[in-house]
């Protein structure tokens, strides 16, 4: 009772090469397979035929490392809400479906190969200020500063970002606002993050712009595809802190 599928996959040999969509058939796919396992099966076949298997990023395969990610039928991580590509299962597809698979598309995320993109721009945004400066061993007792539970919970919601980049992939403007705002919100809500709050917001937003991401026009596509449901008010918070810091 396996499913038969037609895949249209973006193939690109290297960063400088031209890419194109290539069509594959996969047969007898179990509905219990994950999307990546379905690709594994296709790849095993390609290897044996001496073809280049489809390169894609993945590691944890349980929705937490943020390594996987592809645009499936026009939707980042596929249409299943709050789900990473690795946690998407084939039972959500119809038999004989045609599935298009593309890499994240954004100038600051150049394609490395096939579905693999370079997301180091995210690391550089964090480098600009996504931290609290506290050398090991210099910390006061953990209970010396209580944190309101509401703040701690809201900070946590923002902190769950896995850095996958789906927000950028989905944003009509190619904006990295949700990712950047998530970190600004996480640290900005905690007492420990206060001393660097202004400089952090300014530096991170400036780095985001310098990387070539687009601007946010509040279309909300990012939250809708975000596997961790990072809320849109993080962006309001980022704007607030940024405007305050820029005054």
């Amino acid at each position, binding site marked *: 009772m396996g499913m038969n599928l037609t895949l249209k996959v973006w193939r690109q040999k290297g960063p400088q090469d031209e890419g194109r969509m290539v069509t594959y058939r996969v047969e007898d796919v179990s509905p219990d397979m994950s999307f990546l396992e379905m690709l594994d099966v296709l790849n095993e076949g390609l290897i044996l035929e001496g073809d280049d298997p489809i390169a894609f990023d993945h590691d944890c395969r349980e929705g937490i490392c943020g390594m996987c990610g592809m645009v499936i039928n026009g939707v980042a991580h596929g249409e299943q809400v709050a789900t990473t590509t690795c946690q998407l299962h084939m039972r959500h597809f119809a038999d004989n479906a045609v599935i298009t698979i593309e890499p994240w598309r954004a100038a600051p995320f150049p394609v490395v190969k096939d579905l693999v993109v370079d997301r180091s721009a995210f690391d550089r945004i964090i480098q600009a200020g996504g931290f609290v400066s506290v050398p090991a061993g210099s910390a006061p007792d953990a209970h010396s500063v209580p944190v309101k539970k509401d703040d701690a919970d809201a900070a946590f919601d923002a902190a769950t970002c896995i850095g996958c980049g789906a927000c950028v992939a989905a944003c009509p*403007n190619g904006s990295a606002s949700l990712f950047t705002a998530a970190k600004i919100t996480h640290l900005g809500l905690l007492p420990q993050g206060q001393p660097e709050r202004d400089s952090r917001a300014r530096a991170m937003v400036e780095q985001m712009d310098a990387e070539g991401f687009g*601007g946010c026009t*509040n279309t909300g596509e990012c939250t809708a595809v975000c596997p961790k449901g990072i809320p849109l008010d993080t962006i309001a918070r980022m704007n607030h802190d940024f405007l305050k810091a820029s005054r």
Partner: protein
Amino acid sequence: MAVTGAILVLFLLGHMAGNLKSFFGAEAFNTYAEFLRTMGEPLVPRRVLLTLVEVVLTASVVLHMWSAVSLARRARKARPVKYAAKRKSQAGGYATHIMRWGGLTILLFVVWHLLDLTFGVVNPAGWDGTPYEKLVEGFAPSRWWVTAFYVLAVVMVGLHLRHGLWSAFQTLGLAGSRSYRPLKAVAAVVSAVLVLGFLVVPVAVMIGVIK
């Protein structure tokens, strides 16, 4: 973007209120138009304040458009290669996705509108008609297509603002998770009021309530 947008919204609110004066007859409307020009007299000379308003408005429109264009250009640069599959909106809300087209329509409309009711170039009442005459003649039933164009444009304005209004709060960092629902509701109500407020006038003219 948000600041200029907000200025334009304030103008629209005032403008709508003014337009509604046409229901009180030619006198009231023309007096209102005249008032616009004599505002502040004798402290400031005739038309100075109005001109000031016009300058601010023009600047806002220009800046607003400039930000819109630069945002669009950044967006294009940020995604040089498009997706092959048609991207499906996951956020819903078509209003958010027609901001640029909406804006463009509004722009075209304003040009026409100025030629029509301010300068009277395309208006049967001509350059020297009183504002009230321009209004009544411009929306005469025989010129139903003008009215239709206005309706379309005003609906566009409504849609633009339904997103734009709460979006401005978001952009200015004044929104929070708890304020989204009320904000969006307010945006929807204000847009609806504006649309209705603007539309009753041409429609009233067309069906002869105002003549």
